[in-house]
């Protein structure tokens, strides 16, 4: 039974309107990013020819280029770190029996409800006393462990047949090699799905990097752009918008590359 023609048209109309509303601000930013100083502070939506100039000003003159590199680097390190540490922790929970396992598990579980942001000043003082304010370490280290990732992998491992472990043990394969040679190859879709979540998380992060890093050389780009706007440095919206447009590129690439894995990661979990 297919929906009626009217229903299909109606759905398309609603979806088109929604798509337009969601895209409009981005199209606006795109248009503004191509305009010169005078046009950028008018209501004009014309497409200018200043994108390259604005983008270069944003990247070089106002240092957003360096900040983009910082953001990509920090995001990559956190994503990698979270993945490795969560895989390791999940392996420990699923394939070992050790004392206090339940306590350790609860300890990890509880952190799901502890957003770093709520502890901002205490974390800031701690990271400061470790000498890690204004450093990449200060942006990366506090986010390396992930309760979410640990549970994600743990749940996945629980669905992998137990015979595998026995077979591995019979063959004399140790736990680290088991993780590397058996579990990881079986987990790529989940790794991809969790990587997408981690990337979005890091790309959106604001509160912590805003206070932990005030030196433009280490700053993340989302923080740097707000500062450009608020600290009386740029009054050229073409440049601001060019910066905004450029920051969209890396996450879009990640979405495109990992979208399949992301969806399959879920499909897989549905397959039992």
């Amino acid at each position, binding site marked *: 039974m297919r929906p009626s023609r009217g229903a299909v048209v109606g759905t398309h109309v609603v979806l088109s309107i929604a798509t337009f509303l969601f895209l409009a601000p981005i199209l606006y930013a795109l248009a503004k990013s191509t305009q010169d100083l005078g046009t950028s502070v008018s209501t004009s939506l014309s497409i200018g020819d200043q994108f390259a100039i604005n983008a270069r000003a944003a990247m070089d003159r106002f240092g957003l280029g360096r900040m983009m590199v910082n953001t990509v680097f920090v995001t990559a390190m956190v994503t990698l770190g979270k993945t490795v540490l969560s895989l390791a922790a999940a392996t420990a929970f699923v394939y070992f029996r050790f004392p206090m396992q339940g306590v350790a598990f609860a300890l990890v579980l509880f952190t799901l409800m502890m957003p770093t942001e709520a502890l901002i000043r205490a974390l800031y003082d701690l990271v400061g006393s470790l000498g890690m304010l204004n450093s990449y370490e200060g942006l990366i280290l506090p986010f390396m462990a992930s309760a979410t990732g640990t549970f994600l992998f743990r749940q996945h491992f629980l669905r992998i047949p137990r015979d595998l472990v026995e077979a591995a043990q019979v063959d004399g394969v140790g736990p680290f090699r088991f993780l*590397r040679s058996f579990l990881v190859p079986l987990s790529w879709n989940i790794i991809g799905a969790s990587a997408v979540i981690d990337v979005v998380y890091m790309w959106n992060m604001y509160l912590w990097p805003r206070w932990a890093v005030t030196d433009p050389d280490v700053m993340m780009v989302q923080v740097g752009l707000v500062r450009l706007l608020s600290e009386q440095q740029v009054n050229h919206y073409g440049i601001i918008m060019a910066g905004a447009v450029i920051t969209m590129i890396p996450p879009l690439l990640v979405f495109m590359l990992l979208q399949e894995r992301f969806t399959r990661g879920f499909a897989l979990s549905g397959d039992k």
Partner: protein
Amino acid sequence: MRRVFWSLLAVALLATACGDDGGGEPTDVMDDDGDEQAEPEEDEADDLEDPDDVDAEELGGDPDDIVITFWHGLGGDDEVFIEEELAQAYSDQTDGVVVNAQNRGTYEEVLDQSITAAGTDQAPHIAQLYEIGTQIARDSGIFAPIHELDEEGAIDADNYIDAVSSYYTDETGGLYSAPFNSSNPIMMINRDMFEEAGLDPDDPPQRFGEIMDACEQILDSGASEGCYGMPIHSWFFEQMVANQGAVLASNDNGRDGRADEVYLDSDEAVAVMEWWQEMDAEGYWTNSGAREDWDDPRTLMADGQIAMAVDSTASVRAYQDSVAELGNELGTAFLPIPDDAERNGTIIGGASLYVLEDHEDEEIAAAMEFINWLSEPEQDMEWHRATGYFPVRTESREQLEDEGWFEENPNFGTAVEQLEQTEVSPATQGAVMGQFPQIRSIVLDAAEAAMFEGQDPADALSASKQDADSVLQEYNADVE
């Protein structure tokens, strides 16, 4: 600790990638894969080594040079100038000392981070702090007054323009911190628009009433769609109050004992707020409505939407350039003042340099020498020419005058003239009080209530006065 982190991280990744199996399985090809996987991360980490995590050698000095860490709060071109033209130049020409200048964000953040870092090995030697952090900085006890450290008397208050040094002296009459980047508010006008509206750009309006009349004329003539711009910022409020010779806080603005009351409800304060409200309600003052939106008047002026703006003297150059892009010429005038008030002048704004106490004697001596060098007329003039901040030394101002600099740059001339005509009194010395940053935000509460919600300015200010007094008194109780 931070270097340890990278090594630990590399080890952790390697361990996970190719760790000991515990099963006695001989290592095989897989392990090599693991190695390859982890190594690029390390390389990348090296490339991105934070620039501020440096020793003397990396800054171009000898390994056993003294490193002076200098935290500042200036961005953009000013930052480049401080770091490359000043700090780097000094390091190059001085044996045994390397100055590591780092941008630590806003003034607010430099203050927080300096106090937080005090007593640890992270602490800087010199911190650039804003004027409203004066009381907090002094009470925090982590800084040593310049006049105590300066045995040779090189950084003497008498060498500075009175209006500048008077802000930074403490009860001994000596300088507590070294004046560095100073500015005050000034009015910019678009001369061409003035002419188009039939106004005389050589005789710009100075009084509140005159400005409103001029605005009416500008709007009626169609010379521009808006008239006046100014960030909604407490700094301008404080300046306009001081200009009338009124103090903002008790005990002579905190200069004669700790301030414990903020006179936000004084007649002078109400007069300013009434004018703000009227300018806004009449549509003369174009603003985005956002707090402390420094971009707002600059954008409007650059776009030719307004003919007058009140902003910092440090931005005169930016205005001049953007108005020139419109094919127009910029003029300048003194800060507006109420119709019947007598002009007292403005308070110095900007920031000064503080020395942290808890360092080796030789490091402190080296830091003092650097500050001394910075304040020499040559550097002072160079700084002024590059950034638009005031030349703070009497000597450098005179030299610039002799060179004809102010004739070539009349807009800078107006700024210096306004500074020199300032009557030094507790009012124009500016307030020194605790929680000043928070009190600024309380002042804006009143401004927003008056401008956006039509509340009576006197009522709004008296509500803010209560808030301000209570945070100030709480601060005083904690400190004493």
